[in-house]
């Protein structure tokens, strides 16, 4: 019989229970959805990395011989190894494209996942295995022909297979890009046999990719290989592979979202449960008394009232898991896979999701019990009596003093009503605050990326194009290049840096081998491009680099614990000479955390400056790569990738805003109903006294406006905090751009939420017209 009562009560109080249902649904849905794609990405990657032999170790040198490869293969911990030559080229007739060309002999490590076409054949002389995403973006198919030119060589190959490889999950052109743009950048594999016969054996292979039997023994293997192959300039692991790191950091980013949103929705759900159940049980007080008087045991009555939310939260949690995986999980996975290349990527539900869903249900049940227990514990005789409203005077004292005395009676009444119904008001404030946070976060994401774009492409990089100089560029070619494109140049050095501060010794070469202690790999930008490359200090103002030492980005200085005035010791990979140089300044860079110095300082410490990049203030033709150059990149090309990402982000932002508005409507509607039912008899009294409906609606709406204003004022800074937290947690160590929200975004978020709130309040206040004075006052009696 009580089951019938339960179902009828649920139907009668549909809107209040609907909010509890929605909040539990959203909490679980967000958590399950985000985890479904996040864990899906992680597990899909683990499976592909394992099955397709993602390399564990990368050896870099001038060019490894066949014998050196055999030496590597002979190591006890090496399972497989391949030599690779990687160059960036622009295919003929695709002037806006940069293709990363990998010339290989075999494909045992970082094996290709073939989507279409045939498997890699090292003997084939005209085959190309092309990045599937690039092919899709460019409309290329099996059998199409691509012609490439690299220095003096011209190669024409047919697309033999459309592939993805585990080391290209996150495939960007270079460190100046953040987001992959498959339309302008792709990768391809060619067999060495594609080259003309006489050239084949002359190909230098500057990389060996190695699959280890036991990746745990990386350090020992690295030391052994460095010793066994003297030509090795650097040995790196997965931690230094941009693809691996980029993919991993994207997966970890999801954890931040899932935590923040689940906590927010669950918190609102708990508040909704507290306010709704307290009021509901209060309303049911007499019925509880009747049930007790009839002989129902306390435990059974408790179970009955708990079962309302148990039923709802179980259904919501199950639905949340299903919808979270099906909608949010798939949506985000598909979106991620627009950027990342991971064959067979699929969503995964890990046991944690079920545990969290069960925990949500338990929390709701517990809160329900805590909310109801006082009334449920009352003896039957007491429960059958009308409860005397408890109004503590102290709550209202504030509004009888000071400036509050001057407020209108209606305002005072509303303020006291808020104080009297704290639970409902706090639930409302937190709910609307959450919605404001969502909108601010959504707009802030857009603003932050725009701000980053402005900083990166308008403030720091003043050039229009840059030319990557080939490593084999001759002096004559370099002279010709600088004659044509100007003298704005830079060089990027890969450094091995000793951890910790060194004894001061500006520019002192240290001939002895590396001292004991750990080292890290860092980059140093040597600039001779004062017009093209700008540096900014902590406050964003331009900085002129002195020739007295090295500069370090603020973020890297924190990582390495180096401050201005400290010295540090380093050498360039491939060179033996160690230097100890002072830090003379710090600067901020949004996406490259590294050292920087001027050409003058480099030469001052006795090192030769050999530019690897030439900057031009003109937008160059990317297909007209001159002799001695490897590739031409334009700023507009770089920006296009980010802009396309922003375009996609816009739809997510609209989704966020729509979601926030929906949430606001649901919360406000529920609280409006609670608020209305609390005030119904008071409004009936005022109506009897002669107040017109319009005046009463004004009173009702005023309270809504006060609460909305408080919520928005709290929600705006909370939104900033949330986006700062998301960016801090989501961006890797390589990035340093903070959350930025334009004032207009705050205004839009504030006004938007206020209008939604005003609209819902106004709709709710229409119920006042239908208050039946007679029955309302009778009911109160």
């Amino acid at each position, binding site marked *: 019989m009580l089951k019938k009562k339960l179902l009828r009560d649920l139907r009668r109080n549909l809107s209040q229970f609907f909010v509890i249902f929605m909040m539990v649904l959203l909490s679980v849905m967000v958590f399950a959805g985000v985890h479904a794609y996040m864990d899906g990405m992680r597990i899909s990657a683990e499976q592909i990395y394992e099955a397709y032999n993602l390399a564990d170790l990368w050896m870099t040198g001038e060019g490894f011989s066949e014998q050196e490869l055999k030496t590597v293969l002979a190591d006890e911990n090496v399972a497989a190894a391949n030599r690779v030559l990687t160059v960036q080229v622009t295919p003929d007739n695709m002037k806006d494209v940069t293709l990363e060309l990998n010339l290989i002999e075999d494909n045992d490590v970082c094996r290709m996942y073939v989507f279409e076409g045939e498997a890699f054949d090292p003997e084939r002389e005209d085959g190309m295995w092309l990045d599937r995403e690039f092919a899709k973006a460019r409309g290329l198919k099996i059998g199409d022909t691509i012609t490439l030119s690299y220095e003096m060589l011209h190669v024409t190959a047919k697309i033999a297979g459309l592939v993805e490889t585990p080391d290209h999950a996150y495939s960007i052109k270079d460190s100046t890009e953040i987001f992959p743009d498959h339309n302008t950048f792709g990768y391809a594999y060619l067999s060495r046999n594609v080259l003309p016969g006489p050239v084949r054996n002359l190909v230098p292979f500057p990389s060996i990719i190695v699959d280890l039997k036991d990746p745990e023994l990386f350090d020992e293997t690295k030391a052994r290989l460095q010793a066994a192959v003297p030509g090795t300039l650097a040995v790196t692991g997965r931690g230094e592979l941009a693809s691996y790191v980029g993919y991993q950091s994207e997966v970890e980013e999801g954890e931040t979202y899932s935590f923040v949103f689940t906590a927010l929705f669950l918190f609102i759900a708990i508040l909704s449960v507290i306010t709704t159940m307290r009021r509901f049980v209060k309303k049911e007080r007499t019925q509880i008394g009747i049930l007790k008087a009839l002989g129902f045991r306390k435990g059974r009555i408790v179970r009955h009232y708990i079962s309302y939310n148990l039923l709802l939260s179980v259904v919501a949690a199950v639905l949340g898991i299903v919808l979270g995986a099906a909608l949010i999980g798939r949506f985000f996975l598909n979106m991620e896979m627009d950027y990342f290349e991971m064959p067979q990527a699929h969503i995964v539900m890990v046991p944690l999701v079920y545990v969290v869903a069960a925990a949500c249900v338990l929390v709701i049940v517990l809160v329900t019990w805590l909310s109801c227990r006082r009334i449920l514990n009352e003896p039957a005789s007491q429960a059958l009596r009308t409860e005397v*409203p408890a*109004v503590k*005077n102290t709550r*209202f004292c504030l509004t*009888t003093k000071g400036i509050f005395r001057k407020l209108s*009676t209606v305002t*005072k*009444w509303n303020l*006291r*009503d808020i104080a*009297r119904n704290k639970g409902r008001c706090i639930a409302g404030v937190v709910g609307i605050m959450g919605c404001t946070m969502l909108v601010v976060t959504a707009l802030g994401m857009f603003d932050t990326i725009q701000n980053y774009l402005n900083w990166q492409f308008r403030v720091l990089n003043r050039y229009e194009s840059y030319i990557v100089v080939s490593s084999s560029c001759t002096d004559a070619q370099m002279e010709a290049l600088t004659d044509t494109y100007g003298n704005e140049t830079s060089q990027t050095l890969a450094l091995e840096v000793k951890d910790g501060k060194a004894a001061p010794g500006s520019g002192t070469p240290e001939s002895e081998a590396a001292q004991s202690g750990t080292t890290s790999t860092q980059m140093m930008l040597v600039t001779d491009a004062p017009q093209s490359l700008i540096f900014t200090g902590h406050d964003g103002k331009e900085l002129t680099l002195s020739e007295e030492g090295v500069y370090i980005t603020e973020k890297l200085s924190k990582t390495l614990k180096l401050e201005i005035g400290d010295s540090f010791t380093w050498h360039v990979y491939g060179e033996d000479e160690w230097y100890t140089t002072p830090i003379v300044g710090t600067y901020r860079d949004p996406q490259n955390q590294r050292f920087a110095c001027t050409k003058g300082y480099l030469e001052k410490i006795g090192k030769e400056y050999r530019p690897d990049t030439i900057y031009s203030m003109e937008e160059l033709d990317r297909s007209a790569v001159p002799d001695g150059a490897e590739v031409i990149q334009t700023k507009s090309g770089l920006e296009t990738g980010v802009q396309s990402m922003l375009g996609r982000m816009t739809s997510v932002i609209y989704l966020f805003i729509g979601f926030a508005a929906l949430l606001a409507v649901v919360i406000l509607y529920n609280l409006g109903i609670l608020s209305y039912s609390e005030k119904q*008899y*008071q409004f009936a*009294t*005022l*109506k*009897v*006294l*002669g*107040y*017109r*409906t319009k005046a009463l609606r004004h009173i009702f709406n005023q309270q809504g406006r006060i609460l909305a204003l408080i919520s928005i004022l709290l929600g705006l800074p909370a939104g900033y905090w949330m986006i700062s937290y998301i960016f801090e947690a989501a961006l890797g160590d390589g990035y340093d751009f903070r959350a930025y929200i334009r004032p207009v975004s705050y205004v839009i978020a504030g006004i938007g939420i206020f209008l939604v709130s005003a609209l819902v309040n106004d709709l709710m206040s229409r119920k006042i*017209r239908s208050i039946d*004075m*007679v029955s309302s*006052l009778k009911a*109160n*009696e």
Partner: protein
Amino acid sequence: MSLALSLRSVSKVYSTGGHSFKALDQVDLDIEEGKLVVILGPSGAGKSTLLNLIGGMDIPSDGTIRVNGTDISTYSENALADYRAGNIGFIFQFYNILPTLTVLENVNLVADLSEHAIDGKTALEAVGLGDHLDKFPNQLSGGEQQRVSIARAIAKNPALLLCDEPTGALDSATGVTILKLLKEQASRGKTVIIVTHNSLFADIADVVVRLKNGKIRSVTKVEAPMNIDDVEW
């Protein structure tokens, strides 16, 4: 201010769940100004319905209610609100004062509604609550709360005071105090209508209206109403 009331063939039918119930049936009644009128009858007789119709809280299903010659049974919602605001002072059994407003604020709440309202403080002093202005309702006894309700009603300076079981929730001593206040209002020219099931009220009334099953059984004019203190409560 004074008010004369005239009800002709007034009926009120409530319909719920396909069933209809006639709470008032063809009621004719004339009430002169400045009288203390007591409407008596058992539960379900239609007393409160009659009071609600006179007070403009409800509209009749049939018939006319004329106030100083104007038919209020055809008034719009806003016109009825204005009628209540300007002419009627309500006093309820359970006081219906707003718990979150102080005593003075509760009374002042109506000051804006009526053109001829009197100062809230004066009204409260008139009911003996001049020392309780800043208290909240829950700091007062039941009798004091009812006096706030009366002060609120008279603060509008209405022509008609409608009282629904005004002493129903009070002990007899407090009830007597309240009745004296109401009688005092009648002596000042206001029409006071009290709805009650307590037949002792008939002794102090100028006019006694008896209702049963929605119909008026009798209307009695009392030539010499008793003094309240002389009634054995």
